[in-house]
């Protein structure tokens, strides 16, 4: 954004047009980041509104001499992380695997579609760590400082994510084997007669 510093100063002075410029510049980036983590439109919309509400409410906390995106991204991640923390994981990995398998059979998903479906069903905080590594290029240390948790906690999330993904693939494989080996019971002639 051109003259970002001036726009941020104007925003802090209370100029509404400056806020519209900031909103227009960053809205899609913010929405994409949130959506890719939560993978649910309604939840992404709720968090998105919370982010811009916080930006507007705490405009005095912005440092116009620094790039705005890292500040905004931090607000975004904090809002997303606390939203996801409030949500309790209620579905077991076995159940998730069954749901994924049903979709796989019904919709004939490609490998990529299957990956993204599994990702969508993973526990949210595990998904968040994977997304931050992959798309924001975050190291374990970066994630730990952005989310305010220890590096050990980030490692543990990654390790659980890995185990869960493998477990889901194994269950899918088992179901596929069962399907391949399934033979309908032959009806004996006597039974019919």
């Amino acid at each position, binding site marked *: 954004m051109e003259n970002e510093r001036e726009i941020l100063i104007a925003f802090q002075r209370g100029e509404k047009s400056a*806020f519209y410029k900031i909103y227009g510049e960053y*809205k899609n980036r913010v929405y994409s980041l949130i959506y890719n983590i939560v993978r649910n439109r309604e939840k*992404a919309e709720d968090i998105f*509104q919370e982010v*811009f*509400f916080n930006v507007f409410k705490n405009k005095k906390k912005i440092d116009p001499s620094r790039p705005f995106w890292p500040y905004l991204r931090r607000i975004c991640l904090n809002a997303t992380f606390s939203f996801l923390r409030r949500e309790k994981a209620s579905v077991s990995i076995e159940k998730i695997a069954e749901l994924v398998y049903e979709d796989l059979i019904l919709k004939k998903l490609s*490998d990529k579609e299957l990956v*993204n479906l599994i990702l969508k069903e993973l526990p949210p905080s595990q998904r968040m760590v994977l997304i931050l590594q992959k798309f924001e290029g975050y190291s374990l240390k970066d994630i730990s400082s952005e989310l305010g948790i220890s590096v050990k906690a980030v490692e543990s999330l990654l390790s659980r994510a890995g185990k869960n*993904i*493998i477990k889901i693939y194994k269950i899918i494989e088992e179901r596929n084997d069962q399907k391949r080996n399934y033979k309908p019971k032959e009806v004996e002639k006597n039974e019919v007669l």
Partner: protein
Amino acid sequence: MKCSEAKELFLIYISEEMEGNLKREFEEHLKECASCKKELELLSSFVNNIEEKEVKVPPELDFKTMEIIEKQERDSLFHQITKLLYPVVFALGLIIGVLLGMGLNKKQEDKILSLIKENTFYIEPYIQNISPEEVLNERTK
């Protein structure tokens, strides 16, 4: 390294955040364990296939967000005005209270004065410290 330990480290290894002895031990385990190697490959391909979805803010979300911002602005303006008005309201209250108090005092004073006037017959001797008998004598003269 045991399989259970290696499984904990798959995604950390894929993110290239492992180093030193731990990395060496992990890689040695992979050379010996075909099952762990297979699982690592599976996870590696999983991570490569994660797709970033490019999504745009729907217009109705723009509208909803702006509504929230405007409400916040209105609330904060109202809050600022009431904050400014607090001392004024307090001072006004104080003045009204004093005036009311003074008005009441005046009324009370008038009432007492009129009572005194009406009852001079009883009050005056009392004030002058004259006994009731003396008063009666005086009156009967």
